[in-house]
């Protein structure tokens, strides 16, 4: 693809729930060379909102029309999870780079189709794992991978819990969302796979549905265990059925531990020259615009893509394997589609 200084950006999906369409275009447009050029949205009232948000932006009701007329370089797909793959393949096939909202898709088959089309058309494919720029994750990555303050990591516990019925909408519909673990679980899985960089051996899943909450199909408690090849396990729990929770992070290494204690603070314990020492560290400032800054620099040929399709695909491999394992009732180990 020829390098263009100005990148014309579009989004597919401008729903009002979290205003993610506006968030994507706003983050892109912080770079004066990334132009918020087009929005595709079925709902006419939301198209009108897009024009209010970005005066002069082109709006379309059909993706094909936008791809034919808007001369886009990159499109962000911000639609229900089960539509990511089909829309991404359509955009990639038109020669337009794609940023899919997380999760990249639901199944490894979909992900493989997306990656194959990106490769065939030689265009960028990425997933909006902008939380790779979260301050707490960046701190943990430095502590573990740069400072090696806890030695070799052998156990990661992550996630959160609470108690309450989910809202009855598409995000709670398992066929559309992929399951409860595909929402925040996608972020946590991306984080875990970037803290522990070993290949994955197997994944075991366990899910519980509150029998009283039948008006949506997502499970209410999801957890999985990843067994890495190098004798490390990671356990993720995402629950709206947990009256008692646990720290967002507890990470054990052979010479120390890190635990999220409150707010932005982590307690770090380490054996230093045979003696136990400890300190607290606060999360760095988050810099979510780092995602599109990297995409821009990548499209200019000046930087490697941080969120590669391969790294986003590994997340889907884990989530899919967790679902398959949970369905087996016994939580049998499942090898994910991507190591």
């Amino acid at each position: 693809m020829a390098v263009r200084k100005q990148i014309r950006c579009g989004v597919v999906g401008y729903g009002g729930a979290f205003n993610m369409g506006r968030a994507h275009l706003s983050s892109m447009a912080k770079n004066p060379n990334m132009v918020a050029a087009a929005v595709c949205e079925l709902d006419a009232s939301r198209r009108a909102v897009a024009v209010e948000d970005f005066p002069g932006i082109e709006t379309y009701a059909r993706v094909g029309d936008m791809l034919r007329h808007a001369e886009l370089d990159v499109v962000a797909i911000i639609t229900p999870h089960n539509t990511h793959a089909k829309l991404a393949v359509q955009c990639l096939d038109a020669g337009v780079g794609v940023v899919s909202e997380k999760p990249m898709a639901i199944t490894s088959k979909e992900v493989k189709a997306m990656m194959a089309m990106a490769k065939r058309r030689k265009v960028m494919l990425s997933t909006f794992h902008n939380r790779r720029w979260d301050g707490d994750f960046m701190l943990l990555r430095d502590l573990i991978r740069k400072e090696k303050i806890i030695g070799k990591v052998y156990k990661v516990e992550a996630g959160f819990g609470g108690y309450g019925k989910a809202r009855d909408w598409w995000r709670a519909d398992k066929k559309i969302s992929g399951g409860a673990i595909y929402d925040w679980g996608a972020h946590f899985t991306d984080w875990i796979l970037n803290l522990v960089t070993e290949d994955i051996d197997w994944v075991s899943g366990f899910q519980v549905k509150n029998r009283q909450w039948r008006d949506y199909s997502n499970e209410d408690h999801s957890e999985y265990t990843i067994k890495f090849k190098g004798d490390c396990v990671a356990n993720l729990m995402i629950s709206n059925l947990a009256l008692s929770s646990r720290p967002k992070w507890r990470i054990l290494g052979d010479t120390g531990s890190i635990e999220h204690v409150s707010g932005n603070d982590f307690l770090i314990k380490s054996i230093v020259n045979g003696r136990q020492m400890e300190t607290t560290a606060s999360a760095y400032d988050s810099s979510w615009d780092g995602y599109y800054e990297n995409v821009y620099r990548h499209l200019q040929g000046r930087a490697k893509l941080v969120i590669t399709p391969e790294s986003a695909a590994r997340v889907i491999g884990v989530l899919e394997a967790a679902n398959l394992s949970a369905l087996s009732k016994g939580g049998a180990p499942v090898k994910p589609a991507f190591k």
Partner: protein
Amino acid sequence: MPAVAQVRVTSAFMQSLSRAQASTIASLVAMGSQSGATVMGLSGVRRSRDLELVFVDVSISDNTQQELARLGAHGVRVFLVDGLDSVTTRMGRDDVHVLGVKEGDLAAGIVAKLPPPEAVEETDSLT
């Protein structure tokens, strides 16, 4: 000339440390600040007699750098850090430009993470 001699002292006893190298010891130094194994600031370092390591930010004046480099003659490893804030920010003290670590387990732990001492040539000695 005395000025030339002073420059030689600096090059002989101060080891350069990049920002990236220094950042790998941020948590250990923070642990030391809580256990009393670190000394913050120039005056504290001047008063201490049991230091094993001293870290000096490049922004410190040449005269002070040369003064601290002389600690090397007494067995203290002195590092000139290109961005000491990569260490001190973790403790909420990015105003600190000179940092000492007392002899003991913490210093040993920090030494294990740092590059080995650079060879000092005879011609760079105090003579």
